[in-house]
């Protein structure tokens, strides 16, 4: 006995700091819960897969929207105004007006299409050639195609649109790319829908992880009771389950990334073929590093939240009998 007491007196000098003990303990618990998952590889994998699919779905749709935006964004830059002039305006005055508009700072280029030229084009392309020949006079006006300068904003576009429309010579201004703006509006709705869908799927992940952890708690009920009997706090008993949730979330997030990247890989061939057909160099926009990190981060957060939520409810209930 004297010997052991002596050893006790020496021990404090070698004792590690509480922080180091806390850290070491967490490391061993995290590895322990990882080991527990690996002991049931199939069921663990199924849960991770469910989480991965649930995370990958909104991420993939988000990526599609992002690509659609970037493609339509390049159309947006080619935004032109067609200014239809009054029909009684003589051609030389119309040309002079075109040169005048071209001098504006917010205008890059003005192309003049005469009424005769427009009718010629229409005859050629519409297939109504013979019918159009029956017309007593040309129903088409002279047209100015106004290309805005490169540095335009949507506010400056609206101003230009308005000022062109207010010219006394103008009959009607048509924005050729209004459908692009409508398309953007649709994409915005899709984005909102994704946000709502993603929130619902997030709840689904919390429920899935929560239920898995609940089963785990039931299976280890005896162990929880015994450790509580020996003086373990709720926090102590919860820790391994929180780590389990963390691992589910982390692996689910990583696998979601893998699924999205695999999908991108599968699409690469067809997109390259399409780009070849259009002789353009369209490439798929992939996920940015932040987006990839966000998927993993969301996975981990939902995993932790699901297990935290479940353990908070069940740990209190399990008391030694």
């Amino acid at each position, binding site marked *: 006995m004297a010997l052991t007491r002596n050893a006790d007196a020496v*021990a404090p000098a*070698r004792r590690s700091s509480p922080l180091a*003990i806390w850290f070491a303990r967490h490391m061993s618990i995290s590895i322990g819960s990882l080991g527990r998952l690996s002991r049931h590889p199939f069921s663990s994998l199924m849960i991770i897969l469910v989480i991965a699919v649930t995370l990958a779905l909104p991420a993939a749709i988000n990526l599609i929207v992002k690509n659609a935006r970037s493609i339509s964004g390049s159309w947006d830059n080619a935004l032109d105004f067609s200014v239809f002039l009054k029909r009684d305006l003589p051609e030389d005055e119309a040309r002079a007006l075109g040169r005048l508009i071209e001098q504006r700072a917010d205008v890059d280029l003005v192309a003049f299409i005469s009424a005769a030229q427009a009718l010629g084009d229409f005859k050629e392309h519409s297939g109504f050639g013979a019918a159009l020949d029956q017309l007593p006079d040309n129903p088409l006006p002279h047209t100015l195609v106004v290309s805005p300068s490169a540095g335009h904003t949507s506010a400056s576009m609206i101003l230009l649109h308005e000022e062109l429309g207010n010219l006394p010579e103008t009959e009607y201004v048509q924005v050729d790319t209004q459908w692009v703006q409508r398309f953007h509006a649709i994409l915005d709705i899709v984005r909102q829908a994704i946000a709502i869908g993603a929130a619902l799927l997030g709840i689904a992940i919390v429920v899935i992880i929560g239920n898995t952890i609940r089963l785990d708690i039931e299976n280890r009920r005896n162990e929880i009771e*015994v450790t509580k009997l020996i*003086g373990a*706090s709720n926090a*102590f008993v919860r820790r391994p389950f929180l780590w389990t949730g963390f691992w589910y979330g982390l692996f689910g997030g990583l696998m979601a990334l893998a699924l999205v990247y695999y999908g991108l890989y599968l699409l690469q061939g067809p997109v390259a073929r399409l780009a070849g057909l259009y002789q353009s160099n369209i490439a798929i926009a992939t996920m940015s590093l932040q987006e990839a990190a966000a998927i993993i981060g969301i996975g981990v957060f939902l995993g932790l939240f699901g297990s935290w939520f479940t353990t908070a409810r069940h740990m209190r209930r399990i*008391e030694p*009998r």
Partner: protein
Amino acid sequence: MIQLENATKRFPGGQEALSGLSLSIDKGEMVFVTGHSGAGKSTLLRLIALIERPTSGQVIVDGQNTSRVKRRKIPAYRRQIGMVFQDHKLLYDRPVADNVALPLIIAGVGHREASRKVRAALDQVGLLHKEKRRPETLSAGEQQRVGIARAIVSRPKLLIADEPTGNLDPDLSLEVMRIFRRFNEVGVTLLIASHDISLIDRLGCRRIALEDGRLQQEPEEDVESWR
């Protein structure tokens, strides 16, 4: 060390497990609680371990009134007491040494210090050579000794045991009691519930006999009081 003042435990059905029990156990005592099953032995230990709270009356352990221990503080309270159970309550998914280390891990003791204390505790119950074995590969007596090592590893001042020899044959029972005796000799207070009267008589310790949740009146005393 332990004082009960008029402690009563009534269950929801109205049945009383303890009825106004008062008793006192001093520091350094080794006391047995005897009585038939249902006499209130287990309930008494459960009140001391704060697994249950008395319906009325006081339970004071080492100067702490258990009814003032908040729910949140129960784990810390339990860590001061070593507990031994009839069914050992070992965790069968981990080796003997990890079972014994559990109270130290809960208390946040560092790895090196914990393993030293675990070896010391296993040495005291004579199982140092089996520290890496799984509990299910041990005999009932050995498993109970692992349970005892776990109860004493953090050196509690009080050890309570509920039928520690209930599943053991006489030789093993005596061995377990001798281990308890040794702890008592170094100052640990022990409260042991048992119905093995012949064994208790051999040890010559104080006996608290319970009957229907009260202290049993000794027959001789009954006769004395008649006169």
